[in-house]
């Protein structure tokens, strides 16, 4: 049952990801990207992390993609992107084929050295996935979390300064 669901979702995810790059109309690309994000959210649910799934939909599909669609709307990109950028696509294609090959090689012939982590299905069901993430973020990895938030703050200040006419 779960395997069937996985393959169905994976097919949809891959097809829509292909369409993101292939569509001439930027609105269609954006819609396909949203579909890909929703498929990723389904994967998170299958991996027993519903919190991550909700955040995936809220942040990526609900906020970031809305902003991208907003920009498409304001710039009216409909006609501007119609010429093909063959060189870039070819280079990226070669690069991703290479990465796919290397990754496959490692998966087939490499040896798994890591052991199973402490977070198993039993731990998640007894303790709660949201609580685990909260603990990891605000207790175990507090310093990296704070550093990331300072980075975001710097970015926000930068955006405000760039958009202001007189500082």
């Amino acid at each position, binding site marked *: 049952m779960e395997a069937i669901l996985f393959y169905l979702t994976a097919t949809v995810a891959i097809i829509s990801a292909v369409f993101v790059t292939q569509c001439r*109309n930027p*609105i*269609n690309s954006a*819609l396909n990207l*949203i579909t890909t994000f929703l498929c990723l959210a389904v994967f998170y649910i299958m991996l027993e992390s*519903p*919190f991550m*799934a*909700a*955040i995936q*939909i*809220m942040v990526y*599909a*609900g*906020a970031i993609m*809305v*902003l991208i*669609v*907003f920009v*498409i*709307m*304001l710039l009216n990109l409909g006609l501007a992107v119609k010429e093909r950028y063959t060189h870039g696509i070819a280079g990226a294609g070669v690069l991703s084929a290479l990465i796919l090959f290397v990754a496959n090689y490692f998966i087939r012939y490499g040896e798994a050295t890591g052991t199973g982590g402490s977070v198993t299905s039993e731990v998640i069901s007894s303790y*709660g*996935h*949201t609580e685990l993430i909260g603990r990891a973020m605000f207790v175990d990895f507090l310093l990296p979390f704070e550093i990331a938030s300072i980075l975001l703050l710097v970015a926000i200040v930068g955006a405000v300064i760039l958009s202001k006419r007189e500082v």
Partner: protein
Amino acid sequence: MTPEVLTLSETPWLFTGVMLVKIIVAFVATLLIVAYATYAERKIIGRMQSRMGPNMTGPKGLLQPIADGLKLFFKEDIIPSQAHWFAFILAPMMILAPAFISISVIPFGGDLQFTYDGTLYAVPMQITDLNIGVLFIVAMAGLGVYGIVLAGLASNSKYALLGGIRSTAQMISYELAVGLSIVAIFMLSETLSLRGIVAAQQQPLWGLESVSFIPNWYIFCQPLAFVLFVIGSMAEINRTPFDLPEAETELVSGFCTEYSAMKYALFFMAEYANMITVSAIASTLFLGGWGGPFYGWINFLIKVFAFMFFFIWIRATFPRLRYDQLMFLGWKIMLPLALVNIVITGIAILLW
């Protein structure tokens, strides 16, 4: 005898049947309320403005929603020739679906017990209890934006585009304030599941035995969060005074200018479905859900209808905000207040 919980693996047919019944009941009830919310809105606003409202179709005009539906159903469905047809067709569906999906996590009553094959089963009156319930609703509300954005973008019309741009900006700004105002509720209830939040509101107020007749509804501990949530939700579902995306005086009809027939009706159904969803969430989070003096779902319906009456009342009373006032209210008043509310709640939890 403690009741058994239905599971898919042990009693597959019973489980599937019960789930189907729950889904159909919730869906049909929502659709009925949507249909008669339009009637109620026209009647109530009519009465508030010293008019009659619809009164010709059927007794007291009660068949008016059905007549409207039939009329819109048989109208010609026009797609503008320059429109982006796929997004144009997709938009009404994308605005309606999230509103209905959100209903699925809302508990509308206590446990229902019944005996089948000699075993006592307990069925929660809620389609499904996700342990991230509230986040799920927030995520679905975020997806609802796409309906309006796509409608504005695909119509290839200046009015629709302006309506779409306005609504995008408005929804993104108010989503933040709404999301942050709910955070204070999680901090008190220590769970994200809506069932857990309702259960936490059934103890006496602040754990005091002397006033045990008052339930511990979060509106008493979090009045500020409640006000922020109601105002923000009104902005998120584009109700007056925040209905700038479809401001008739400036934008003809905003994002749905180019729509006709059933697609146009879907936009209006979505508006009322969103109103029901928001009322249901507000009564679950702040007013104790199905808790109260009567039997479970009756309490819940009374609270939902009270909220909907409030929204209609506001529409009859308030003028529309100006765009800069809207942005000012969202970013400079509601967002800081929501943050302050979280900090104060955190300090209060640490102290007591």
